[in-house]
Structures are given as structure tokens and as C-alpha cells.
């Protein structure tokens, strides 16, 4: 991360703002203590006892993703690239979330697996399971570290707190409530965080729009600005992808971001899927990502729009956009800079709370998914089998502590990177892009062999790493986010090709072991969800809800794209 210290982003926080922040922390810890009473087994601790209603898991589903990278990174992209950033939501999230709920959830929830790697163990055996469990655990700890560092950096910038102190305080708060209350505490706090984040960003957007003279004022000012009117339309996003040819740029967005990257992330990332697995019924589990998709489709309006506004009304930001970086401000500071520019004491406190809430949501999601994979997929499967459940509950708590300590260490690894977004995207394309290919084959092609499971994953990951290295060393020229889109595409294609090739020369998994895991071998009744009692009513139909949010996204694309 570049040195930003010269840019003065210090916020004028008063006692009132700190009081509002303190109230929030009291609630967060209180939820941890209250949730503790409901933890009496490892399944309670690591999967909320599969008891949560769909609106709770649905909001937690997107809140878990609404972390540091999301907020600061997307506002930064908004300031730099304009409306093209909406692709990360409308192309890069909604279709994948609907697909997860409608197509994949019956196998995840229906097979009663406790984690995404566990699905791979049942489908393919040990090879693919180990590759996925280890890479996931490592990635989560790294990303938790990035989130922690970003949080500390922001606290230092806005409030002047020393970075090491901020890292430790934030880690301690997350650790306290996740160790006490487990996934329930993490999920309940994620729902609370969601509302606090909206309560912070919605007023900011309203004041910002008022300042630039409403929507028309925004359009006029962006058109007259250095980015020009191109930044008001989402397509073809040549600036964002770094691909000059508009047709190839659109293909890069739709295939790279929309298909491979986003499907890989949303449908196989256990930090997300875990929220749905904790739902109380198959119907609630299927609705989880779809209910989350509705607010997800609207979040760009309170994240990207403020980013665009920041580049208009914050003088240093406007100068940066015009090519003058002498103030030392970076695009990643768009959101805090706008908050400092527009919000008086009171709302300022809410805004700071909202930003901190978002960071902690990210860290807690990483930690609470890491501890599950560590406990069930690594410790229970390979190190200590067949112990009583209390033993694994204790391991779950210890893994939470261990994961957080390692994340504190990795927080400082993140310091070397300029754009948080690039760093995370690189990690995602390494681990996630090939996963989606493997899962799709695994769920719909019963012939796919156990060896193909892990060899495909490894080959796909290596393909992504290769593209990353070629782009970093300048062999392939792809500025912007283009490298991760292409890397993800390569990983997907290589995974499919290698998996098919290996399957042809190896023996298939016996069919009786695949019941409930593969589409053609799962009886139709067990893929269905109940539609009675608390799952009754047309407004609880996953298919109808899914069609609704796809239609909403289409309309948004037409109106604002």
C-alpha cells in the first residue's frame, strides 16, 4: 500500500461519535454472550445447529462479503472507473447467487455436508478434499489478515490510532464474539452490521447527491470531468478490464468476471455457502443466496455512487483524477474522504461505526469459516478421528483463536500491495476459479473419477498462477482487472479439459456412493424442498424469488448500464 500519510484524512470525531461507536461495540459483544447460551455441540458452534431463518442467513450471506475490500475497493473503483464498477454486482454476483440457490443448494444442503470441502471428500475421496481444504484454510487466514490490516490502516488514517494497536483491538473483538457464540454470533452480528452499514452509507449518498445537484448534476459533472461521459455507462468497460477492444472487453466481463470468477466465488466459497448451510430447512437454504441477492443488487447505489461523488466534491480526489497525485491521496480513500467532507458529528460517528462494522464482518466471516474447515475437514478427518463431540467443540474454539492470531501476522503481509482489490482478486482466481469447474462436473457428470477431482483442481490453479505471473512480469499486457478475469477463464478451461482427460483413463467412482451428490443419481424427491408450514406461500418460492431478482437486475442494467 502506498504511503498515504501526507494526505490529511483525519476526521473531526468528537465525544458523541465515539459514544455511538462504543454503543455498537457493546451490542456486538452482547450478541456474543447471548449466543453462547445456545451452543451445546460442535454443530451449534460451527453451523448454528442448522436452525436460522432465511432472512437472517440471507442478509448474513451478503454481509459476510461486505468487508473492507468490498466497500473501500468498490468505492475506489467507482471513483476511478465510474459506473462500469456495477459489473461486480449485476454481472459478477446476482446470476451466481441465484444459480447457487436454485441449482447447487439441493446437493449442498441435501447431502448434509458440513462444509464445501466435505462435499468434495464424499464425491471424490481424499485427494480433492485435501487440496481444497488446505487451500481454503490458507486463503481465509490470508484474507482475514488483509481485512484486519485495512481496518487498522483506516483507523490510523481517520482517528490517528496506531496501526498495531488497531489490529489487536479489532482482532480481539472479533475473537471474543466468535469464540463465545460461534457461527450464530458471527451471523447475528453480520445482520446487525448490514443495517449499520446501510445506515451509514445511505445518508452519505443522499448528502452527496444533494451536494452535486441531484442525479442530473452528477451526470453533468461527470460528463464535464476527466473521465467523460464514458464513465456513466457500464458497457463496454474497456477502462476497467484494460482490454482495448470493446467486444473482447465485454467477453472478458461476461465470461471472466460474470461466469468464472463470480460463479467460482459465490457458489464454492465456503465463507458464503456456510451461511446457507446454517439455515433451518432446505427451502430456507435455497432462499438464502436469493434473498441476499436483492440488497446486493441495490448496494452499488450506496457504494459506487459515493465513490463517483467523491471524485467530484473532494478536492484532492478530483485532482488525483485529473492526473495530479501530489496530495498523496489514493482511490482507496474515496469513501473516508467523502465522509470527512460531508458528514457532521453524529452521522460521522455512525459512518465510522459502519466502516468498522464492515471490516469486522469480513474478518468474522473468514475466521468462522476457517474454524469449521479446520475442525471438520482437517483435524477430524486426518488428525484425530472418532472423538466425542465436546472434543471437536473445543478444537473449534481453539482453531478460532489460532486462526485469528495467524491473521494478525498476515495483516502485515498485506502492507506490500498497492491495490487491495488486485491482491484479493489474484487469490480468488488462484483458488476459486478452477473450483467452480470441478463442482459443476462433480454434480452433473457421474462418470467423473476421483483422480480427475484433484488433478483438475491442481492444474486449474496452476493455470491461474501462470497467467498472474505473466501479467505481473509484463509478458502479457493487461492493466486494470483484466489479468484476474483472464486468469480465471484460463483456470476454468484448463480444469475442465484436464478433468475430462483424466476421467477418460481412470476408473469412475462406484455409483452407489454418489447418491445425493450427483444430479442423475439423486431421486427427485430428495432434491425437492418442503412447501408447507414455515416454508409455505408463493413469496417463499426460491424459483419465483430467483426470477424476480434476475428481472430486477436486467431492469437496472437497462436503466443505469
Amino acid at each position, binding site marked *: 500500500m502506498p504511503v498515504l500519510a501526507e494526505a490529511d484524512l483525519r476526521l473531526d470525531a468528537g465525544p*458523541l461519535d465515539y459514544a*455511538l461507536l462504543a*454503543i*455498537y461495540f457493546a*451490542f456486538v459483544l*452482547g*450478541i456474543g454472550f*447471548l*449466543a453462547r*447460551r*445456545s451452543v*451445546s*455441540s460442535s454443530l*451449534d458452534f460451527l453451523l448454528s*445447529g*442448522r*436452525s436460522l431463518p432465511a432472512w*437472517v442467513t440471507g442478509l448474513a450471506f451478503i454481509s459476510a462479503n461486505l468487508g473492507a475490500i468490498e466497500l473501500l475497493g468498490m468505492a475506489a473503483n467507482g471513483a476511478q472507473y465510474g459506473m462500469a464498477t456495477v459489473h461486480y454486482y449485476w454481472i459478477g454476483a446476482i446470476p451466481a447467487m441465484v444459480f447457487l440457490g436454485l441449482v447447487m443448494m439441493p446437493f449442498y444442503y441435501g447431502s448434509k455436508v458440513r462444509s464445501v470441502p466435505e462435499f468434495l471428500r464424499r464425491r471424490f475421496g481424499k485427494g480433492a478434499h485435501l487440496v481444497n481444504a488446505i487451500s481454503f484454510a490458507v486463503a481465509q487466514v490470508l484474507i482475514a489478515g488483509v481485512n484486519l490490516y485495512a481496518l487498522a490502516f483506516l483507523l490510523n488514517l481517520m482517528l490517528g490510532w496506531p496501526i498495531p494497536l488497531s489490529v489487536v483491538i479489532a482482532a480481539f473483538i472479533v475473537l471474543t464474539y466468535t469464540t463465545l457464540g460461534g457461527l*450464530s454470533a458471527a451471523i*447475528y452480528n453480520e*445482520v*446487525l452490521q448490514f*443495517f*449499520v452499514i446501510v*445506515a451509514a452509507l*445511505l*445518508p452519505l449518498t*443522499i*448528502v452527496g447527491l*444533494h*451536494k452535486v445537484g441531484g442525479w442530473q448534476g452528477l451526470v453533468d459533472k461527470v460528463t464535464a470531468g476527466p473521465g467523460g461521459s464514458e464513465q456513466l455507462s457500464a458497457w463496454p468497460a474497456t477502462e476497467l478490464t484494460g482490454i482495448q477492444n470493446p467486444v473482447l472487453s465485454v467477453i472478458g466481463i461476461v465470461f471472466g468476471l460474470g461466469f468464472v470468477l463470480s460463479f467460482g466465488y459465490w457458489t464454492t466459497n465456503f465463507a458464503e455457502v456456510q451461511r446457507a448451510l446454517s439455515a*433451518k*430447512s432446505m427451502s430456507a437454504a435455497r432462499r438464502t443466496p436469493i434473498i441476499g441477492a436483492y440488497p446486493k443488487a441495490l448496494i452499488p447505489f450506496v457504494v459506487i455512487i459515493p465513490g463517483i461523488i467523491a471524485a467530484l466534491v473532494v478536492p484532492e480526489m478530483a485532482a488525483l483524477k485529473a492526473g495530479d497525485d501530489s496530495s498523496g491521496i489514493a482511490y482507496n480513500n474515496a469513501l473516508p474522504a467523502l465522509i470527512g*467532507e*460531508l*458528514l*457532521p*458529528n*453524529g*452521522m460521522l460517528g*455512525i459512518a465510522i461505526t459502519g466502516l468498522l462494522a464492515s471490516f469486522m464482518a469480513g474478518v468474522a466471516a473468514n475466521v468462522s469459516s476457517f474454524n469449521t474447515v479446520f475442525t471438520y475437514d482437517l483435524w477430524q478427518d486426518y488428525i484425530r478421528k472418532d472423538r466425542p463431540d465436546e472434543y471437536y467443540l473445543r478444537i473449534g474454539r481453539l482453531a478460532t483463536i489460532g486462526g485469528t492470531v495467524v491473521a494478525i501476522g498476515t495483516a502485515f503481509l498485506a502492507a506490500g500491495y498497492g491495490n487491495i482489490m488486485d491482491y484479493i482478486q489474484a487469490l480468488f482466481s488462484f483458488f476459486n476459479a478452477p473450483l467452480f469447474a470441478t463442482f459443476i462436473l462433480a454434480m452433473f457428470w457421474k462418470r467423473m473419477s476421483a483422480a480427475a477431482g484433484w488433478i483438475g483442481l491442481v492444474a486449474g490453479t496452476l493455470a491461474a498462477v501462470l497467467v498472474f505471473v505473466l501479467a505481473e512480469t509484463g509478458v502479457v499486457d493487461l492493466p486494470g482487472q483484466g489479468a484476474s478475469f483472464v486468469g480465471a477463464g484460463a483456470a476454468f478451461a484448463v480444469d475442465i479439459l484436464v478433468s475430462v482427460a483424466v476421467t477418460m483413463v481412470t476408473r469412475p467412482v462406484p455409483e452407489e456412493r454418489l447418491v445425493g451428490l450427483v444430479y442423475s443419481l439423486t431421486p427427485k424427491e430428495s432434491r425437492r424442498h*418442503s412447501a408447507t*408450514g414455515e416454508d409455505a406461500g408463493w413469496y417463499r418460492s426460491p424459483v419465483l424469488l430467483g426470477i424476480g431478482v434476475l428481472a430486477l437486475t436486467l431492469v437496472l442494467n437497462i436503466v443505469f448500464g
Partner: protein
Amino acid sequence: MAHKAGLFDLRLVIAVLFGVYGVVLAVVGLGFTDETDLAKSDGLNINLWSGVGMAALAALFATWAILRPIVVPDASDAREDA
């Protein structure tokens, strides 16, 4: 299976937090906002309006929680439909 019944109601937690936030912000907006504050947020009394909005959100969640309280099923029921 020993399974302690029911979590606390999250909707009430949300209602209390935003109730407190809403009242504090509305009071600040009404009684403690000077010209400099107003000028900063472009003439909008954003504390007041945000406070009103949050209080409304709190009322909504409180109403929902009161009208549709959580019913805790017996442990055996909960296991069957899962």
C-alpha cells in the same frame, strides 16, 4: 438429543440499537446543530433525518418481532424437517 431451545430474538436487538441511534441523532439534529454543521452537509439537517429514519427502522423491527414472535419447535420436530 440435548438441544437448548431458541436463540434470543435478533429483531429486538436491531430495534433497540437503532432506537437508541435514532433518538440520539434526532435530538442532536434538533437541538445541537449549528450553522457550520449545516453548511458541511450542504444545508441538509442530515442528523435529524437519519435519526428519524433509524427510529422508523427500529419501530418496524419491533412491530415485526411483537406480531410474529419466535416459536421454538420441540427438538424432535426440528430434527425431522431438516
